[in-house]
C-alpha cells in the first residue's frame, strides 16, 4: 500500500505499539520518527535492533515513549543520547537492557516461528539478572546438568519501521546489504517503510536487485520521504550528517533547547510542507 507521506504511515501506529527501529548505521526512518512526534504518539515501546540512536532519542524527548529495549543508546561520535539520559534519570521511561546478538536472536526466533532461540555468553552478567523473561537451561545435548545456556523468547514487534532506497511498482522495497531490516520485517506484524523514490517494474525480476529486496509480502505500507534517513546515511546515496547530530546533541542538553529544536526541525518543517 502506497501512502502519501511519512505522516500517513505514522497514523497507522497506535499508542502503546511495540516499534522496532534500526540504529543510525542501518537505515532508520527518521522521517517516520518525526511524523510520530507530530501525531503526538504516546506510550510507544521501542526496540533498538540491536542498538538505538538519533530517532529513539527524539521520540523519547518528545514524550512518545514508555519503554526502550535495546543494547545501547548513543549518538555515536556526538556522545551520549541526551533525552534518553534525562528521561532515565527522571524515571519517565523503562529501560530494558539487552545485548546485540540477543536482540537479533529474539527477532530471528519470531522470523522462524519458534518460541525461543539459544545464545552463548551472557551468563554471569547483570543483563541476565535483570531479564526475568530470559531463561537458563542445561544444554540438552550436553552431559546431564552441564553446560548452562541462555534461551531467549521470540519477540514479535507490532511494527518494523525503517527507510529504504527504493520501492517498485509491486510494493517491494530495496535496501541493498542492510539485510537486518529484512529480519525485522519478517519478525514483525507490520512493516512501515519510507523510501527515496518509487521506480517502475519488479525488483524480483532482476537478479542484480533481488537479493537486496524485502518483498511486498512483508511490507504493510510505504511512502516517499526524501532523505528520510537523515541524519543517518543511506547506502551510497548520502552520508551521515555529523553536523546535524552534533547540533542536536548541543541543543538537546536541556529540555528547553530540545523543545526549540523540535519546533524548528519537526513541527516547522511540517507546517512549511503543508503551506506549500
Amino acid at each position, binding site marked *: 500500500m502506497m501512502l502519501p507521506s511519512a505522516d500517513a504511515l505514522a497514523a497507522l501506529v497506535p499508542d502503546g505499539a511495540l516499534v522496532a527501529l534500526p540504529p543510525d548505521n542501518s537505515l532508520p526512518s527518521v522521517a517516520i520518527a518525526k511524523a510520530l512526534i507530530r501525531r503526538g504518539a504516546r506510550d510507544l515501546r521501542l526496540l533498538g535492533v540491536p542498538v538505538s540512536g538519533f530517532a529513539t532519542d527524539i521520540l523519547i524527548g518528545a514524550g512518545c515513549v514508555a519503554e526502550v529495549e535495546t543494547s545501547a543508546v548513543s549518538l555515536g561520535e556526538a556522545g551520549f543520547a541526551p533525552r534518553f539520559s534525562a528521561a532515565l534519570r527522571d524515571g519517565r521511561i523503562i*529501560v530494558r537492557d539487552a545485548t546485540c546478538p540477543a536482540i537479533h536472536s529474539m527477532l530471528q526466533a519470531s522470523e522462524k516461528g519458534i518460541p525461543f532461540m539459544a545464545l552463548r555468553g551472557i551468563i554471569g552478567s547483570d543483563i541476565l539478572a535483570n531479564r526475568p523473561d530470559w531463561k537458563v537451561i542445561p544444554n540438552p545435548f550436553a552431559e546431564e546438568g552441564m553446560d548452562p545456556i541462555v534461551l531467549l523468547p521470540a519477540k514479535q514487534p507490532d511494527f518494523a519501521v525503517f527507510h529504504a532506497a527504493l520501492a517498485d511498482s509491486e510494493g517491494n522495497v530495496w535496501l541493498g546489504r542492510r539485510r537486518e531490516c529484512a529480519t525485522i520485517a519478517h519478525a514483525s506484524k507490520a512493516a512501515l517503510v519510507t523510501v527515496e523514490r518509487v521506480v517502475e517494474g519488479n525488483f524480483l525480476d532482476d537478479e542484480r536487485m533481488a537479493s537486496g529486496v524485502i518483498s511486498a509480502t512483508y511490507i504493510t505500507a510505504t511512502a516517499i520521504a526524501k532523505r528520510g534517513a537523515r541524519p543517518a546515511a543511506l547506502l551510497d546515496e548520502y552520508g551521515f550528517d555529523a553536523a546535524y547530530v552534533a547540533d542536536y546533541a548541543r541543543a538537546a542538553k536541556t529540555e528547553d533547547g530540545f523543545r526549540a529544536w523540535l519546533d524548528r526541525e519537526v513541527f516547522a518543517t511540517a507546517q512549511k510542507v503543508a503551506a506549500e
Partner: protein
Amino acid sequence: MSDIALEERLAATLARLILDPAAPPARHIAVGAASPIPAAACWLVKLLGHPVKLSLLHKRSGNPFTEGTRELFDLTGQGRIDLFFLGGGQIDGQANLNLVGTGEWPGTGVRFPGSFGSAFMYFMTPRTILFREEHSPRVLVEKVDNISAPGVSPPGVFRRGTAQALVTGKCVFAFHPDRARFSLSSLHPGETVDSVRAATGFDFDAEGEIGATPDPTAAELALLRGQVRAEMVETYPEFCGRVWGRAA
C-alpha cells in the same frame, strides 16, 4: 621524527599485544565503532606484513557484512573472529566490564550507552584486549556497579576466552583468568608502580622490576603517520586530524 603522540604509543602497544606469540593466533580481528586507536593498531599489524583479516565495523565503503550487524555476532559464534577489543565505563580488578552505568541497574547514577555486544563477544572470542585511555579510580574500580560482561566464568560455562590485557593511558596490565587478577606489565613514560596504584581503584600484582612500555619503532611511526593514517582517514577523520594533522 617528531615526538611520539600517546595515541601512537598506544597503537604500537596494542599491535605488540596482537602479535604476542604466546597468545592464540589473530587471523581475523574485528574492531567496533568509535575505536580509532585499536583500528590503528590493527592496520599497523597488517601493514607490517602480517597476514591478518580486519573487519572494521564502521567502515562505510566496502563494509564486509551482507547480513547487517548480525553477521559480526554470527561470525564470532562460528569461531571465525580471533580477537576483539572492549572497553567500559568501569573495569574492575576481575576484568568485569560495566558499559551500562553507575548506581542501581540500569544506570541510575551515570548512564553509559549500554552493553552493545559485550556480553557475547567477551565469551566467544578467544582473545579480548581491553582498552581504555582514561586511567583513573573512577574508571578502574574495585568492583563494577553493574556487570555488562564478566571477566571470568565458573567451570562448565562455555567460554572461549577472556581478557588478554588491559591497556590504558598509563600502563599495560596482563590478565590472569586462573586467579582473576591483573598484573602490571609495563609503564608508559613518566609513570611508576606507585603512580599507577594511586590512579587504580583495584588491587593488582606487580612482581619484580616493571619495565617501560617500549616506544614505537621508527618503522612503526612511519607506517602510522603514512599508510595507517591513509587507511583510517575516511572512517575517523576527526581522530586523524587531531593526531596527525590535516595534511597528508
